[in-house]
């Protein structure tokens, strides 16, 4: 089942922060985050495994709360290069099949 991402879109000024949420109706085994810029292929950001770990990639970090079946991606001190559509991919069991959310479009303006 497809996870639900929120918000659908967000507009930021450089230096501002944002949070993107990813929720699933079923138990999660892992959560993957990708960013896709317009006309390009999605690029991997990070994987979070169940256990409530938190990871970071430059000034982008994420958390995974398996009890709440959700993950959040944190964009800190956003840069123009952060613009793009962010997708979360969730795996509900040990079947290695990712279900992706519809995406959150982030626009960072100078």
């Amino acid at each position, binding site marked *: 089942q497809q996870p639900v991402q929120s918000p659908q879109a967000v507009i930021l000024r450089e230096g501002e922060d944002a949070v993107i949420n990813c929720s699933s109706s079923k138990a999660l085994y892992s959560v993957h985050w990708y960013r896709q810029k317009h006309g390009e292929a999605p690029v991997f950001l990070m994987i979070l495994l169940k256990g409530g770990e938190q990871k970071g990639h430059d000034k982008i970090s994420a958390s995974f709360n398996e009890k709440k079946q959700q993950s959040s991606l944190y964009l800190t001190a956003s840069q123009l290069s952060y613009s793009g559509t962010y997708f979360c991919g969730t795996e509900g069991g040990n*079947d*290695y099949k990712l279900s*992706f959310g519809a995406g959150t479009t982030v626009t960072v303006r100078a």
Partner: protein
Amino acid sequence: EAGVTQSPTHLIKTRGQQATLRCSPISGHTSVYWYQQALGLGLQFLLWYDEGEERNRGNFPPRFSGRQFPNYSSELNVNALELEDSALYLCASSLGQGNYNEQFFGPGTRLTVL
């Protein structure tokens, strides 16, 4: 190191025809995944191949099929094309079984069904 490559870049077909899309994974990667990205619908998982075998498939009809060759490249076939099959088809590869390995995506094939 070359990334994931896909061909063709664009493909235009008419309803009822068949389409064949190709993907070459990164050297050393044995897993290949296929996704459909229709406008506004995000990435929909289609198929996963590893070591030449189909390991899993998404909720798509049987007219979506594929295979993986001994060199780990892969082919996606869509039979009896319908208008709603128009989408960007993305291929991704990873080092091996399991989603603990990040998936590297190719640039995609834009399929248009008229």
